[in-house]
Protein backbone atom coordinates (compact mmCIF):
# COMPACT_ATOMS: atom_id res chain seq x y z
CA UNK A 1 0.00 0.00 0.00
CA UNK A 2 2.70 2.41 0.97
CA UNK A 3 4.97 1.60 -1.99
CA UNK A 4 6.00 4.80 -3.71
CA UNK A 5 4.12 5.24 -6.95
CA UNK A 6 4.48 7.74 -9.72
CA UNK A 7 0.76 8.29 -9.94
CA UNK A 8 0.60 11.54 -8.02
CA UNK A 9 0.95 13.63 -11.16
CA UNK A 10 -1.55 11.82 -13.38
CA UNK A 11 -4.79 13.51 -14.41
CA UNK A 12 -6.84 11.00 -12.40
CA UNK A 13 -4.90 11.92 -9.27
CA UNK A 14 -5.67 15.56 -9.90
CA UNK A 15 -9.33 14.71 -10.40
CA UNK A 16 -9.27 12.78 -7.14
CA UNK A 17 -7.67 15.64 -5.29
CA UNK A 18 -10.24 18.03 -6.66
CA UNK A 19 -13.02 15.64 -5.75
CA UNK A 20 -11.68 15.27 -2.20
CA UNK A 21 -11.63 19.02 -1.85
CA UNK A 22 -15.21 19.32 -3.11
CA UNK A 23 -16.32 16.71 -0.58
CA UNK A 24 -14.51 18.41 2.27
CA UNK A 25 -15.69 21.92 1.49
CA UNK A 26 -19.06 20.90 0.20
CA UNK A 27 -20.94 24.09 1.01
CA UNK A 28 -18.27 26.33 -0.49
CA UNK A 29 -18.11 24.14 -3.60
CA UNK A 30 -21.83 24.09 -4.20
CA UNK A 31 -22.16 27.81 -3.54
CA UNK A 32 -19.33 28.62 -5.91
CA UNK A 33 -20.96 26.49 -8.54
CA UNK A 34 -24.36 28.08 -8.02
CA UNK A 35 -22.76 31.51 -8.21
CA UNK A 36 -21.71 30.97 -11.83
CA UNK A 37 -24.61 28.69 -12.62
CA UNK A 38 -26.87 31.29 -14.31
CA UNK A 39 -24.11 31.96 -16.84
CA UNK A 40 -24.25 28.33 -17.92
CA UNK A 41 -28.00 28.09 -18.31
CA UNK A 42 -29.94 28.90 -21.50
CA UNK A 43 -32.15 31.34 -19.60
CA UNK A 44 -32.46 32.51 -16.05
CA UNK A 45 -35.94 31.38 -15.09
CA UNK A 46 -34.73 27.78 -15.36
CA UNK A 47 -31.72 28.56 -13.17
CA UNK A 48 -33.99 30.07 -10.51
CA UNK A 49 -36.25 27.02 -10.71
CA UNK A 50 -33.30 24.68 -10.21
CA UNK A 51 -32.16 26.72 -7.23
CA UNK A 52 -35.59 26.50 -5.61
CA UNK A 53 -36.27 22.85 -6.36
CA UNK A 54 -32.71 21.97 -5.44
CA UNK A 55 -33.46 23.32 -1.97
CA UNK A 56 -36.79 21.47 -1.93
CA UNK A 57 -35.00 18.22 -2.79
CA UNK A 58 -32.25 18.86 -0.21
CA UNK A 59 -34.91 19.37 2.47
CA UNK A 60 -36.67 16.21 1.42
CA UNK A 61 -33.40 14.26 1.31
CA UNK A 62 -32.69 15.08 4.94
CA UNK A 63 -35.67 12.92 5.83
CA UNK A 64 -35.51 10.38 3.01
CA UNK A 65 -31.79 9.88 2.38
CA UNK A 66 -30.34 10.54 5.81
CA UNK A 67 -33.07 9.37 8.18
CA UNK A 68 -34.56 6.68 5.95
CA UNK A 69 -38.15 7.94 6.05
CA UNK A 70 -39.89 8.05 2.68
CA UNK A 71 -42.51 10.79 2.81
CA UNK A 72 -44.99 11.05 -0.05
CA UNK A 73 -46.42 14.25 1.29
CA UNK A 74 -43.71 16.86 1.03
CA UNK A 75 -45.71 18.90 -1.47
CA UNK A 76 -47.72 19.97 1.59
CA UNK A 77 -44.71 21.85 2.99
CA UNK A 78 -43.72 23.39 -0.33
CA UNK A 79 -47.34 24.45 -0.85
CA UNK A 80 -47.96 25.74 2.66
CA UNK A 81 -44.74 27.76 2.45
CA UNK A 82 -45.83 29.21 -0.89
CA UNK A 83 -49.42 29.94 0.06
CA UNK A 84 -48.76 31.49 3.45
CA UNK A 85 -46.04 33.72 2.00
CA UNK A 86 -48.48 34.72 -0.75
CA UNK A 87 -51.50 35.20 1.51
CA UNK A 88 -49.55 37.40 3.91
CA UNK A 89 -48.50 39.63 1.02
CA UNK A 90 -51.67 39.67 -1.07
CA UNK A 91 -54.31 39.84 1.66
CA UNK A 92 -52.42 41.59 4.42
CA UNK A 93 -49.85 43.60 2.54
CA UNK A 94 -46.90 42.21 4.55
CA UNK A 95 -43.31 42.93 3.66
CA UNK A 96 -41.97 40.09 1.52
CA UNK A 97 -39.27 39.13 4.03
CA UNK A 98 -41.75 38.88 6.87
CA UNK A 99 -44.14 36.94 4.65
CA UNK A 100 -41.35 34.53 3.75
CA UNK A 101 -40.73 34.02 7.47
CA UNK A 102 -44.43 33.27 7.98
CA UNK A 103 -44.24 30.73 5.15
CA UNK A 104 -41.34 28.91 6.82
CA UNK A 105 -42.98 28.96 10.26
CA UNK A 106 -46.28 27.70 8.84
CA UNK A 107 -44.57 24.88 6.96
CA UNK A 108 -42.77 23.93 10.19
CA UNK A 109 -46.06 23.84 12.08
CA UNK A 110 -47.56 21.69 9.35
CA UNK A 111 -44.46 19.53 9.77
CA UNK A 112 -45.08 19.19 13.51
CA UNK A 113 -48.68 18.07 12.92
CA UNK A 114 -48.09 15.72 10.00
CA UNK A 115 -44.81 14.44 11.45
CA UNK A 116 -46.35 13.76 14.85
CA UNK A 117 -49.01 11.56 13.29
CA UNK A 118 -46.81 9.93 10.66
CA UNK A 119 -43.83 8.83 12.77
CA UNK A 120 -46.07 6.47 14.69
CA UNK A 121 -46.00 4.27 11.61
CA UNK A 122 -43.21 2.64 9.66
CA UNK A 123 -42.28 1.78 6.09
CA UNK A 124 -45.09 1.89 3.56
CA UNK A 125 -47.58 3.02 6.21
CA UNK A 126 -45.46 6.07 6.92
CA UNK A 127 -45.51 6.93 3.20
CA UNK A 128 -49.28 6.42 3.01
CA UNK A 129 -50.02 8.52 6.10
CA UNK A 130 -47.92 11.41 4.80
CA UNK A 131 -49.63 11.12 1.41
CA UNK A 132 -53.10 11.11 2.95
CA UNK A 133 -52.42 14.07 5.24
CA UNK A 134 -50.88 16.05 2.37
CA UNK A 135 -54.01 15.40 0.32
CA UNK A 136 -56.10 16.86 3.15
CA UNK A 137 -53.92 19.98 3.00
CA UNK A 138 -54.42 20.09 -0.78
CA UNK A 139 -58.20 20.02 -0.49
CA UNK A 140 -58.28 22.50 2.35
CA UNK A 141 -56.38 25.06 0.26
CA UNK A 142 -58.36 24.13 -2.84
CA UNK A 143 -61.66 24.81 -1.06
CA UNK A 144 -60.56 27.99 0.72
CA UNK A 145 -61.02 29.90 -2.51
CA UNK A 146 -61.43 33.27 -0.86
CA UNK A 147 -57.92 33.07 0.52
CA UNK A 148 -56.11 30.89 -1.99
CA UNK A 149 -57.87 31.52 -5.29
CA UNK A 150 -58.82 27.82 -5.40
CA UNK A 151 -58.28 26.23 -8.77
CA UNK A 152 -56.82 29.40 -10.30
CA UNK A 153 -54.13 29.68 -7.70
CA UNK A 154 -53.17 32.73 -5.69
CA UNK A 155 -52.33 35.70 -7.88
CA UNK A 156 -50.87 39.13 -7.39
CA UNK A 157 -47.74 38.51 -5.30
CA UNK A 158 -45.55 41.46 -6.19
CA UNK A 159 -42.01 42.24 -5.15
CA UNK A 160 -40.97 45.01 -7.50
CA UNK A 161 -37.90 46.19 -5.63
CA UNK A 162 -35.75 45.03 -2.76
CA UNK A 163 -33.90 47.46 -0.60
CA UNK A 164 -30.56 46.46 0.80
CA UNK A 165 -29.16 49.33 2.77
CA UNK A 166 -28.78 52.29 0.42
CA UNK A 167 -29.24 50.16 -2.71
CA UNK A 168 -32.45 49.20 -4.44
CA UNK A 169 -32.42 45.94 -6.35
CA UNK A 170 -34.78 45.34 -9.23
CA UNK A 171 -36.38 41.99 -8.37
CA UNK A 172 -37.99 41.81 -11.81
CA UNK A 173 -34.57 41.48 -13.37
CA UNK A 174 -34.04 37.70 -13.60
CA UNK A 175 -30.33 37.86 -12.77
CA UNK A 176 -30.94 39.97 -9.66
CA UNK A 177 -33.77 37.68 -8.68
CA UNK A 178 -31.47 34.68 -9.00
CA UNK A 179 -28.88 36.15 -6.67
CA UNK A 180 -31.43 37.32 -4.10
CA UNK A 181 -32.89 33.81 -3.90
CA UNK A 182 -29.35 32.45 -3.94
CA UNK A 183 -28.64 34.18 -0.60
CA UNK A 184 -31.48 32.27 1.07
CA UNK A 185 -30.59 28.95 -0.52
CA UNK A 186 -26.96 29.46 0.47
CA UNK A 187 -27.91 30.03 4.11
CA UNK A 188 -30.14 26.94 4.07
CA UNK A 189 -27.42 24.76 2.55
CA UNK A 190 -24.91 25.97 5.10
CA UNK A 191 -27.37 25.02 7.84
CA UNK A 192 -27.99 21.55 6.39
CA UNK A 193 -24.28 20.90 6.08
CA UNK A 194 -23.70 21.94 9.69
CA UNK A 195 -26.59 19.78 10.81
CA UNK A 196 -25.25 16.72 9.00
CA UNK A 197 -21.79 17.22 10.49
CA UNK A 198 -23.17 17.68 14.01
CA UNK A 199 -23.69 14.98 16.65
CA UNK A 200 -27.38 15.05 15.78
CA UNK A 201 -26.45 14.26 12.16
CA UNK A 202 -24.84 11.07 13.47
CA UNK A 203 -27.98 10.25 15.46
CA UNK A 204 -30.29 10.44 12.44
CA UNK A 205 -27.98 8.18 10.43
CA UNK A 206 -27.92 5.77 13.35
CA UNK A 207 -31.72 5.80 13.39
CA UNK A 208 -31.74 5.02 9.68
CA UNK A 209 -29.28 2.16 10.13
CA UNK A 210 -30.90 0.52 13.14
CA UNK A 211 -33.70 2.00 15.23
CA UNK A 212 -33.53 -0.68 17.88
CA UNK A 213 -29.82 -0.12 18.44
CA UNK A 214 -30.22 3.65 18.43
CA UNK A 215 -32.81 3.35 21.20
CA UNK A 216 -30.60 0.94 23.16
CA UNK A 217 -27.80 3.52 22.88
CA UNK A 218 -30.07 5.99 24.68
CA UNK A 219 -31.50 8.00 21.79
CA UNK A 220 -35.17 8.87 21.71
CA UNK A 221 -35.97 7.62 18.21
CA UNK A 222 -39.44 9.17 17.93
CA UNK A 223 -38.22 12.58 19.06
CA UNK A 224 -35.23 12.51 16.72
CA UNK A 225 -37.46 11.58 13.80
CA UNK A 226 -39.92 14.36 14.58
CA UNK A 227 -37.13 16.92 14.83
CA UNK A 228 -35.75 15.96 11.40
CA UNK A 229 -39.25 15.92 9.99
CA UNK A 230 -39.89 19.48 11.13
CA UNK A 231 -36.51 20.75 9.91
CA UNK A 232 -37.15 19.08 6.57
CA UNK A 233 -40.60 20.70 6.39
CA UNK A 234 -39.14 24.12 7.21
CA UNK A 235 -36.56 23.84 4.41
CA UNK A 236 -39.25 22.78 1.93
CA UNK A 237 -41.42 25.65 3.18
CA UNK A 238 -38.57 28.08 2.50
CA UNK A 239 -38.29 26.67 -1.02
CA UNK A 240 -42.05 27.18 -1.37
CA UNK A 241 -41.95 30.76 -0.13
CA UNK A 242 -39.12 31.61 -2.50
CA UNK A 243 -41.07 30.05 -5.32
CA UNK A 244 -44.07 32.26 -4.57
CA UNK A 245 -41.79 35.32 -4.83
CA UNK A 246 -40.25 33.96 -8.01
CA UNK A 247 -43.48 33.11 -9.84
CA UNK A 248 -45.60 35.91 -8.30
CA UNK A 249 -48.42 33.35 -8.23
CA UNK A 250 -48.99 30.17 -6.26
CA UNK A 251 -50.39 27.46 -8.50
CA UNK A 252 -52.59 24.90 -6.74
CA UNK A 253 -50.29 22.26 -8.27
CA UNK A 254 -47.73 23.18 -5.59
CA UNK A 255 -49.72 21.03 -3.18
CA UNK A 256 -50.43 18.22 -5.63
CA UNK A 257 -49.03 14.78 -4.86
CA UNK A 258 -47.17 14.86 -8.18
CA UNK A 259 -45.03 17.52 -6.55
CA UNK A 260 -44.25 15.11 -3.70
CA UNK A 261 -43.36 12.48 -6.28
CA UNK A 262 -40.98 14.91 -7.95
CA UNK A 263 -39.01 15.27 -4.73
CA UNK A 264 -38.58 11.49 -4.61
CA UNK A 265 -37.52 11.39 -8.28
CA UNK A 266 -35.02 14.22 -7.89
CA UNK A 267 -33.42 12.52 -4.89
CA UNK A 268 -33.18 9.13 -6.56
CA UNK A 269 -31.93 10.63 -9.81
CA UNK A 270 -29.16 12.59 -8.10
CA UNK A 271 -28.39 10.20 -5.28
CA UNK A 272 -30.22 9.94 -1.98
CA UNK A 273 -28.26 10.36 1.21
CA UNK A 274 -25.57 12.49 -0.45
CA UNK A 275 -25.18 16.22 0.03
CA UNK A 276 -25.07 17.23 -3.66
CA UNK A 277 -27.29 14.47 -5.03
CA UNK A 278 -30.65 16.21 -4.65
CA UNK A 279 -29.34 19.35 -6.36
CA UNK A 280 -27.94 17.34 -9.24
CA UNK A 281 -31.24 15.47 -9.46
CA UNK A 282 -33.27 18.67 -9.47
CA UNK A 283 -31.05 20.19 -12.17
CA UNK A 284 -31.24 17.12 -14.42
CA UNK A 285 -34.97 16.70 -13.91
CA UNK A 286 -35.87 20.33 -14.61
CA UNK A 287 -33.48 20.72 -17.53
CA UNK A 288 -34.82 17.55 -19.06
CA UNK A 289 -38.37 18.74 -18.55
CA UNK A 290 -37.48 22.07 -20.09
CA UNK A 291 -35.75 20.63 -23.15
CA UNK A 292 -38.15 17.78 -23.83
CA UNK A 293 -41.34 19.86 -23.55
CA UNK A 294 -40.20 21.86 -26.56
CA UNK A 295 -39.88 18.64 -28.57
CA UNK A 296 -42.90 16.58 -27.57
CA UNK A 297 -46.05 16.79 -25.52
CA UNK A 298 -45.16 13.49 -23.96
CA UNK A 299 -42.24 14.82 -21.98
CA UNK A 300 -43.28 12.86 -18.91
CA UNK A 301 -42.72 9.63 -20.83
CA UNK A 302 -39.19 10.65 -21.73
CA UNK A 303 -38.37 11.83 -18.22
CA UNK A 304 -39.85 8.59 -16.91
CA UNK A 305 -37.64 6.52 -19.21
CA UNK A 306 -34.52 8.41 -18.10
CA UNK A 307 -35.56 7.96 -14.48
CA UNK A 308 -36.05 4.20 -14.97
CA UNK A 309 -32.66 3.95 -16.65
CA UNK A 310 -30.91 5.49 -13.66
CA UNK A 311 -32.85 3.58 -11.03
CA UNK A 312 -32.14 0.27 -12.81
CA UNK A 313 -28.50 0.78 -13.77
CA UNK A 314 -27.26 3.45 -11.36
CA UNK A 315 -29.30 2.91 -8.21
CA UNK A 316 -26.99 5.22 -6.25
CA UNK A 317 -28.00 8.11 -8.55
CA UNK A 318 -25.79 10.34 -10.68
CA UNK A 319 -23.81 11.97 -7.89
CA UNK A 320 -23.97 8.89 -5.66
CA UNK A 321 -22.44 6.74 -8.40
CA UNK A 322 -19.69 9.28 -8.96
CA UNK A 323 -18.88 9.28 -5.25
CA UNK A 324 -18.78 5.47 -5.15
CA UNK A 325 -16.51 5.26 -8.21
CA UNK A 326 -14.03 7.73 -6.81
CA UNK A 327 -14.02 6.07 -3.40
CA UNK A 328 -13.37 2.69 -5.00
CA UNK A 329 -10.55 4.16 -7.08
CA UNK A 330 -9.01 5.66 -3.95
CA UNK A 331 -9.23 2.37 -2.06
CA UNK A 332 -7.74 0.43 -4.97
CA UNK A 333 -4.75 2.73 -5.01
Amino acid at each position, binding site marked *: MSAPQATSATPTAYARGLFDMVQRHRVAAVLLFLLVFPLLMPYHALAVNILIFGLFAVGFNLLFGYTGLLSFGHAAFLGVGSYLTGIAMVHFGWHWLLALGLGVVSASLAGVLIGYLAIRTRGIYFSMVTLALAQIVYYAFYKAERWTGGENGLRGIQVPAIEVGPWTLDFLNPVTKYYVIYVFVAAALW*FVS*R*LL*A*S*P*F*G*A*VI*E*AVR*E*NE*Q*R*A*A*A*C*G*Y*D*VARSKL*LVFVISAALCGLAGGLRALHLSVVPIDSLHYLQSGQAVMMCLLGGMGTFFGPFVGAAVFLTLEDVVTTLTRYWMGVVGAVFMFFVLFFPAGIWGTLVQRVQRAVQAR
Partner: protein
Amino acid sequence: MSATETPILEVEGVSKHFGRFVALNKVTASFQPRKLSAIIGPNGAGKSTFFNVVSGAFPPTAGRLKFKGRDITGLAQHEFARIGIAKSFQITNVFKQLSAHENVRVAVQMRHARYELLRPREAMRELADRAAELLARVGLAGLRDRPAADLAHGQQRALEVAMALAAEPELLLMDEPTAGMSPEETVVMMDLITALAAERSVIIVEHKMKLVMGICERLLVLHHGEFLAEGTPEEIKANAEVRRVYLGQG
Protein backbone atom coordinates in the same frame (compact mmCIF):
# COMPACT_ATOMS: atom_id res chain seq x y z
CA MET B 1 -20.02 -7.20 50.89
CA SER B 2 -22.49 -5.64 53.23
CA ALA B 3 -25.98 -7.05 53.38
CA THR B 4 -27.48 -3.57 53.60
CA GLU B 5 -26.20 -2.40 50.20
CA THR B 6 -29.03 -1.44 47.81
CA PRO B 7 -29.36 -4.07 45.10
CA ILE B 8 -28.47 -2.84 41.60
CA LEU B 9 -31.56 -4.52 40.18
CA GLU B 10 -34.69 -5.89 41.83
CA VAL B 11 -37.30 -7.85 39.96
CA GLU B 12 -40.52 -8.06 41.95
CA GLY B 13 -43.27 -10.44 40.91
CA VAL B 14 -42.71 -9.74 37.22
CA SER B 15 -44.99 -11.46 34.71
CA LYS B 16 -45.10 -11.20 30.95
CA HIS B 17 -48.01 -12.50 28.93
CA PHE B 18 -48.21 -12.70 25.15
CA GLY B 19 -51.93 -13.06 24.55
CA ARG B 20 -52.84 -16.14 26.59
CA PHE B 21 -49.29 -17.44 26.69
CA VAL B 22 -47.51 -16.80 29.98
CA ALA B 23 -43.79 -16.36 29.20
CA LEU B 24 -42.86 -15.19 32.68
CA ASN B 25 -44.89 -15.99 35.76
CA LYS B 26 -44.36 -13.74 38.79
CA VAL B 27 -40.58 -14.00 38.96
CA THR B 28 -38.74 -12.33 41.79
CA ALA B 29 -34.99 -11.85 42.04
CA SER B 30 -32.49 -9.39 43.37
CA PHE B 31 -28.99 -8.62 42.05
CA GLN B 32 -26.14 -7.19 44.11
CA PRO B 33 -23.85 -4.49 42.68
CA ARG B 34 -20.53 -5.41 41.03
CA LYS B 35 -21.35 -9.10 40.68
CA LEU B 36 -21.46 -11.37 37.68
CA SER B 37 -24.71 -13.32 37.61
CA ALA B 38 -26.17 -15.59 34.99
CA ILE B 39 -29.72 -16.55 34.12
CA ILE B 40 -29.70 -20.02 32.66
CA GLY B 41 -32.39 -22.38 31.50
CA PRO B 42 -33.37 -24.73 28.69
CA ASN B 43 -34.89 -23.49 25.44
CA GLY B 44 -38.26 -21.84 25.90
CA ALA B 45 -37.72 -21.25 29.61
CA GLY B 46 -38.45 -17.54 29.23
CA LYS B 47 -34.83 -16.33 29.28
CA SER B 48 -35.16 -13.95 26.35
CA THR B 49 -38.43 -12.57 27.70
CA PHE B 50 -36.74 -12.00 31.04
CA PHE B 51 -33.86 -10.25 29.28
CA ASN B 52 -36.18 -8.06 27.23
CA VAL B 53 -38.22 -7.02 30.25
CA VAL B 54 -35.26 -6.15 32.48
CA SER B 55 -33.45 -4.36 29.63
CA GLY B 56 -36.47 -2.24 28.75
CA ALA B 57 -37.39 -3.62 25.32
CA PHE B 58 -40.97 -4.01 26.56
CA PRO B 59 -42.70 -3.45 29.90
CA PRO B 60 -43.85 -6.34 32.09
CA THR B 61 -47.54 -7.26 32.16
CA ALA B 62 -47.41 -7.20 35.95
CA GLY B 63 -44.82 -6.62 38.67
CA ARG B 64 -42.15 -4.01 39.23
CA LEU B 65 -38.52 -3.36 38.31
CA LYS B 66 -36.20 -1.37 40.54
CA PHE B 67 -32.78 0.00 39.62
CA LYS B 68 -30.71 1.03 42.65
CA GLY B 69 -33.94 1.21 44.64
CA ARG B 70 -35.72 3.42 42.09
CA ASP B 71 -38.85 2.15 40.34
CA ILE B 72 -38.13 1.98 36.61
CA THR B 73 -41.13 -0.08 35.49
CA GLY B 74 -42.46 1.22 32.18
CA LEU B 75 -39.55 3.49 31.27
CA ALA B 76 -38.86 3.72 27.52
CA GLN B 77 -35.94 1.86 25.99
CA HIS B 78 -33.77 4.95 25.53
CA GLU B 79 -34.28 5.94 29.17
CA PHE B 80 -32.81 2.62 30.34
CA ALA B 81 -29.54 3.50 28.62
CA ARG B 82 -29.57 6.98 30.12
CA ILE B 83 -30.01 5.84 33.72
CA GLY B 84 -27.20 3.31 33.34
CA ILE B 85 -28.52 0.01 32.02
CA ALA B 86 -26.88 -1.05 28.75
CA LYS B 87 -27.32 -4.25 26.80
CA SER B 88 -25.92 -6.40 24.06
CA PHE B 89 -28.45 -8.24 21.95
CA GLN B 90 -28.65 -11.96 21.23
CA ILE B 91 -28.76 -11.27 17.51
CA THR B 92 -25.92 -8.95 16.61
CA ASN B 93 -27.27 -5.45 16.40
CA VAL B 94 -24.91 -2.77 15.09
CA PHE B 95 -25.05 0.12 12.60
CA LYS B 96 -23.87 -1.92 9.63
CA GLN B 97 -23.02 0.83 7.15
CA LEU B 98 -21.04 2.85 9.67
CA SER B 99 -17.40 2.19 10.52
CA ALA B 100 -16.53 0.34 13.72
CA HIS B 101 -15.24 3.57 15.20
CA GLU B 102 -18.34 5.55 14.22
CA ASN B 103 -20.56 2.85 15.77
CA VAL B 104 -18.88 3.35 19.13
CA ARG B 105 -18.56 7.12 18.70
CA VAL B 106 -22.32 7.47 18.24
CA ALA B 107 -22.84 5.43 21.39
CA VAL B 108 -20.29 7.52 23.36
CA GLN B 109 -21.93 10.73 22.18
CA MET B 110 -25.19 9.90 24.00
CA ARG B 111 -23.70 10.95 27.34
CA HIS B 112 -22.24 14.21 25.99
CA ALA B 113 -24.07 15.70 23.02
CA ARG B 114 -27.49 14.26 22.38
CA TYR B 115 -29.16 17.10 20.50
CA GLU B 116 -26.26 19.24 19.32
CA LEU B 117 -27.33 20.59 15.96
CA LEU B 118 -24.66 22.99 14.81
CA ARG B 119 -21.31 22.09 16.40
CA PRO B 120 -19.21 19.85 14.13
CA ARG B 121 -18.72 16.44 15.71
CA GLU B 122 -15.24 16.24 14.17
CA ALA B 123 -14.24 18.94 16.63
CA MET B 124 -15.24 16.81 19.61
CA ARG B 125 -11.94 15.01 19.94
CA GLU B 126 -12.74 13.56 23.36
CA LEU B 127 -15.62 11.53 21.91
CA ALA B 128 -13.43 10.07 19.18
CA ASP B 129 -10.66 9.30 21.68
CA ARG B 130 -13.04 7.60 24.06
CA ALA B 131 -14.44 5.52 21.19
CA ALA B 132 -10.92 4.48 20.16
CA GLU B 133 -10.18 3.52 23.76
CA LEU B 134 -13.28 1.33 23.92
CA LEU B 135 -12.46 -0.31 20.60
CA ALA B 136 -9.04 -1.18 21.97
CA ARG B 137 -10.63 -2.52 25.14
CA VAL B 138 -12.62 -5.12 23.16
CA GLY B 139 -9.70 -5.90 20.86
CA LEU B 140 -10.81 -4.07 17.72
CA ALA B 141 -8.24 -1.26 17.66
CA GLY B 142 -6.91 -2.31 14.26
CA LEU B 143 -10.32 -2.35 12.59
CA ARG B 144 -11.60 1.11 13.42
CA ASP B 145 -12.31 2.29 9.87
CA ARG B 146 -13.86 -0.96 8.65
CA PRO B 147 -17.64 -0.85 8.07
CA ALA B 148 -19.33 -2.91 10.79
CA ALA B 149 -20.94 -5.11 8.15
CA ASP B 150 -17.46 -6.29 7.02
CA LEU B 151 -16.39 -7.48 10.47
CA ALA B 152 -16.39 -11.18 11.39
CA HIS B 153 -19.25 -12.39 13.57
CA GLY B 154 -17.19 -12.47 16.76
CA GLN B 155 -15.84 -9.01 16.02
CA GLN B 156 -19.34 -7.62 15.54
CA ARG B 157 -20.30 -9.04 18.92
CA ALA B 158 -17.25 -7.43 20.50
CA LEU B 159 -18.22 -4.16 18.79
CA GLU B 160 -21.63 -4.40 20.41
CA VAL B 161 -20.00 -4.78 23.81
CA ALA B 162 -17.94 -1.65 23.14
CA MET B 163 -21.14 0.20 22.22
CA ALA B 164 -22.84 -0.97 25.41
CA LEU B 165 -19.83 0.18 27.47
CA ALA B 166 -19.91 3.56 25.75
CA ALA B 167 -23.06 4.41 27.70
CA GLU B 168 -20.99 4.05 30.92
CA PRO B 169 -23.48 1.58 32.38
CA GLU B 170 -23.55 0.49 35.99
CA LEU B 171 -25.46 -2.57 34.90
CA LEU B 172 -24.56 -4.47 31.75
CA LEU B 173 -27.06 -7.01 30.42
CA MET B 174 -25.94 -9.55 27.84
CA ASP B 175 -28.20 -11.94 25.95
CA GLU B 176 -26.19 -15.06 25.00
CA PRO B 177 -23.00 -13.08 24.37
CA THR B 178 -21.21 -16.01 22.74
CA ALA B 179 -24.05 -17.20 20.48
CA GLY B 180 -22.70 -18.36 17.13
CA MET B 181 -19.06 -17.88 18.14
CA SER B 182 -16.17 -20.23 17.47
CA PRO B 183 -14.55 -21.86 20.54
CA GLU B 184 -11.61 -19.43 20.27
CA GLU B 185 -13.86 -16.39 20.04
CA THR B 186 -15.88 -17.72 22.97
CA VAL B 187 -12.79 -17.87 25.21
CA VAL B 188 -11.87 -14.29 24.33
CA MET B 189 -15.40 -13.08 25.01
CA MET B 190 -15.67 -14.88 28.36
CA ASP B 191 -12.37 -13.34 29.46
CA LEU B 192 -13.64 -9.94 28.46
CA ILE B 193 -16.88 -10.43 30.40
CA THR B 194 -14.94 -11.50 33.50
CA ALA B 195 -12.78 -8.39 33.25
CA LEU B 196 -15.82 -6.14 32.79
CA ALA B 197 -17.56 -7.64 35.81
CA ALA B 198 -14.72 -6.43 38.03
CA GLU B 199 -15.95 -2.85 37.54
CA ARG B 200 -19.72 -3.13 37.25
CA SER B 201 -22.69 -5.44 37.60
CA VAL B 202 -23.12 -7.88 34.76
CA ILE B 203 -26.06 -10.18 34.15
CA ILE B 204 -25.73 -12.73 31.38
CA VAL B 205 -28.60 -14.70 29.95
CA GLU B 206 -27.16 -17.96 28.68
CA HIS B 207 -28.34 -21.24 27.28
CA LYS B 208 -25.08 -23.17 27.69
CA MET B 209 -24.77 -23.91 31.41
CA LYS B 210 -21.15 -25.12 31.25
CA LEU B 211 -20.03 -21.81 29.82
CA VAL B 212 -21.08 -19.71 32.81
CA MET B 213 -20.33 -22.25 35.55
CA GLY B 214 -16.70 -21.25 35.74
CA ILE B 215 -17.04 -17.48 35.86
CA CYS B 216 -20.30 -16.59 37.59
CA GLU B 217 -20.72 -16.08 41.31
CA ARG B 218 -24.42 -16.69 41.17
CA LEU B 219 -26.75 -18.59 38.88
CA LEU B 220 -30.50 -18.40 38.54
CA VAL B 221 -32.26 -21.20 36.72
CA LEU B 222 -35.36 -20.31 34.77
CA HIS B 223 -37.81 -23.01 33.77
CA HIS B 224 -41.30 -22.62 32.30
CA GLY B 225 -41.28 -18.93 33.12
CA GLU B 226 -40.41 -19.38 36.79
CA PHE B 227 -37.22 -19.51 38.82
CA LEU B 228 -36.47 -23.11 39.65
CA ALA B 229 -33.29 -22.64 41.63
CA GLU B 230 -30.75 -20.05 42.61
CA GLY B 231 -27.27 -20.27 44.11
CA THR B 232 -23.57 -20.68 43.57
CA PRO B 233 -22.38 -22.83 40.66
CA GLU B 234 -21.69 -25.69 43.10
CA GLU B 235 -25.17 -25.54 44.57
CA ILE B 236 -26.75 -25.45 41.13
CA LYS B 237 -24.63 -28.38 39.95
CA ALA B 238 -25.78 -30.41 42.96
CA ASN B 239 -29.45 -29.52 42.53
CA ALA B 240 -31.41 -32.60 41.45
CA GLU B 241 -34.27 -30.58 40.00
CA VAL B 242 -31.92 -28.61 37.75
CA ARG B 243 -30.25 -31.78 36.54
CA ARG B 244 -33.63 -33.24 35.65
CA VAL B 245 -34.57 -30.15 33.63
CA TYR B 246 -31.28 -30.06 31.77
CA LEU B 247 -31.13 -33.83 31.21
CA GLY B 248 -30.37 -34.70 27.62
CA GLN B 249 -29.32 -31.15 26.88
CA GLY B 250 -25.85 -29.73 26.37
